[in-house]
């Protein structure tokens, strides 16, 4: 008899989702789906709003990565104003995005995934959270929390507030960094560098501890997509798109993000509100690609900061050149924190961040604009069409998590097939399925949920949808 197992909601991720696992008559996994059951409607209700308000509105897509939306939005608006923004504004925006990568990656690694990695996938679920981590390894937990705080403090120093800073504007930014705040941030940098280097040490030790997870957590060939700078250097704010395959071969390079519709398609599945983008030349679903830390480290030639470049060459040795297992997202994330911190240090030393020439003013000079930047979770596109007065006529948002949708589905199916043996499924296996999703650090509704407040419910159903048994995990795990 066919059985369906539902994990709803998936815990310790940003937002709400559920997983269905289908068992065939023999009790082995037939298929698995990752559903996003939320509908937001941003693309619709932005219609009719003035262009200048779009950054503020679309930032509300997400409370973890509002900065990504702010940047993609104002970059689309820069195109519509047809301005080249002042160099100081570029540097300040870069500083903001790096801070966001640090805080978001720190949240993903230390708060959400470190409990699995450091305490063990099969450890007591009531202690497998940031609080359990804090009692088992207080230094790591505290360092992680402080690291995220550092990223948030940079965002606050620039934008006035940690979440949804309305500071980035079409044409530039709304103000410079003050010298006092710059000095303070510079003083906080060494501790942050220590924390991430220590975490990298821990991560390398874990690779030997979890060979089976590394082999089964989304370990499959796919394309990788992201922005790169000149000479293929790691990039997060500007640059052109590069696509590589799982052997490291460059499939496409120098793609203009503004023309994304020519090479990226979007498929819609009836069982999820998340669209499934794919690389058009290979078709759907063969054009499956991954974005985010794993992809960015796979596509770049180097990181261009000394400490992180050393880590990158070691990383490439350890993962075998190109990282194809999604388990390595965590490792890649830590290396990205390191390069971001080094780059933050460089930018804080740059006198331009105190410059008073930070905003270009212009009217509506083009009716269409695409903005693209690297969000912590991957490449983000904002595409706007406006009328002659600058009122939004059409919006398309291509979100990083959406681009990983196909890969997340395949990951869930792979983990389920590897770990599920018949209808009696231990808790640690369910946790592994969730952890496979967590590796991507998906941001589904872009809203935080109270950690550990949501109970996990697993339903076993037959092919007619009749409930056979219900497994329930207590809240707080």
């Amino acid at each position: 008899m066919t059985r369906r197992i539902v994990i709803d909601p998936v815990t310790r991720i940003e937002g709400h989702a559920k997983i269905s696992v289908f068992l065939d008559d023999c009790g082995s996994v037939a298929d698995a789906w990752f559903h996003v059951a939320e509908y937001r409607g941003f693309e619709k209700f932005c219609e009719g709003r003035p262009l200048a308000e779009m950054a503020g509105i679309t930032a509300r897509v997400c409370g973890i990565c509002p900065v990504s939306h702010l940047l993609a939005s104002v970059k689309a608006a820069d195109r519509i104003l047809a301005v080249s923004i002042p160099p100081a504004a570029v540097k300040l925006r870069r500083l903001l995005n790096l801070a966001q990568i640090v805080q978001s990656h720190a949240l993903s690694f230390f708060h959400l995934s470190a409990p699995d990695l450091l305490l063990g996938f099969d450890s007591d679920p009531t202690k497998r959270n940031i609080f359990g981590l804090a009692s088992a390894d207080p230094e790591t937990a505290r360092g992680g929390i402080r690291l995220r705080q550092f990223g948030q403090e940079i965002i606050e120093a620039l934008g006035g507030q940690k979440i949804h800073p309305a500071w980035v504007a079409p044409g530039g930014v709304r103000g410079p960094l003050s010298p006092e705040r710059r000095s303070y941030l510079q003083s906080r940098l060494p501790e942050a560098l220590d924390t991430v280097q220590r975490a990298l040490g821990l991560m390398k030790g874990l690779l030997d501890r979890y060979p089976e997870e590394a082999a089964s957590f989304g370990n499959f060939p796919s394309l990788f997509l992201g922005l790169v700078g000149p000479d293929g250097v790691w990039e997060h704010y500007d640059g052109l798109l590069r696509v590589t395959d799982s052997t490291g071969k460059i499939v496409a390079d120098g793609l203009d993000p503004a023309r994304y519709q020519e090479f990226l398609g979007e498929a819609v599945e009836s069982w999820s509100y998340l669209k499934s983008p794919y690389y058009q030349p290979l078709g759907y679903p063969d054009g499956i690609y991954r974005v985010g830390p794993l992809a960015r480290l796979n596509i770049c030639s180097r990181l261009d900061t000394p400490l992180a470049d050393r880590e990158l060459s070691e990383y490439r040795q350890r993962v075998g050149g190109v990282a194809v297992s999604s388990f390595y997202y965590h490792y890649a994330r830590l290396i990205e924190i390191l390069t971001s911190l080094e780059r933050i240090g460089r930018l804080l030393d740059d006198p331009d961040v105190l410059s008073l020439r930070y905003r270009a003013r212009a009217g509506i000079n083009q009716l269409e604009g695409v903005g693209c930047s690297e969000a912590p979770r991957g490449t983000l596109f904002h595409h706007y069409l406006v009328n002659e007065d600058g009122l939004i006529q059409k919006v398309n948002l291509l979100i990083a998590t959406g681009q990983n949708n196909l890969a997340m589905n395949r990951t869930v199916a792979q983990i389920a097939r590897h770990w599920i043996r018949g209808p009696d499924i231990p808790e640690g296996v369910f946790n592994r399925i969730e952890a496979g999703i967590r590796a991507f650090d998906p941001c589904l509704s872009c809203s935080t949920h109270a950690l550990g407040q949501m109970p996990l419910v697993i339903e076993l159903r037959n092919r007619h949808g009749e409930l056979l048994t219900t497994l329930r995990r207590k809240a707080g795990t």
Partner: protein
Amino acid sequence: MAVRTLTINDKLVSSPEGATILQAARENGIDIPTLCQLDGLSTVGACRLCLVEVGPAGRLQAACVTQVAEEMVVRTETPKLREYRRMIIELLLTERNHVCSVCVANHHCELQDLAVKLGVDHVRFEYLHPHLPVDVSHELFGIDHNRCILCTRCVRICDEIEGVHTWDVSGRGTNARIISDLNQPWGDSPTCTSCGKCVQACPTGAVFRQGSTVAEMEKDRQRLRFLLTAREKREWLV
């Protein structure tokens, strides 16, 4: 000038004949919330936030349009008044689409300030969610009807201080809208001088400077007082 003596909140105060209860209260340091009232403009008593209780029966009167009288007894803070004022703000919020977090006037909005002051932590009435346009056809300014509370400050300042009467009100009830000239796009207005007084007079983010991002639209209402003093007294106090 004759003086009238009255009681406001058990305090004996005196005020010139012809003054309103609102003026008498403010001269004596008693705060009464207002939205449609703006110093220097005619009063219309539209928003009803300045309702006070007058006489032993506690008759409800708008303080901005009610003149003081001898031995008048006024109460400005009673549970009933607080409840009505709160209800007025809630109804204003339900009538249009006020989304503070993404509004250009966030943190610089009189409606928002009053909602906070009067303890509007939730709205008990159903939102109308009307479908309203934004007019950004003007080169410098824009008007977003979603944020308009129909206080008519823009209408009055344009008529009474700038003297061109570009703005007016069309329609009735919930269909009432601020219009420019003969209900044409602001950018096509043959009368507008682009002086920007309506932008400064608007208590919310309904009238704003083009290109304003979230919370960027600060209003400088002192400019209006400066203009009036300059015009009436020939004094340019900066």
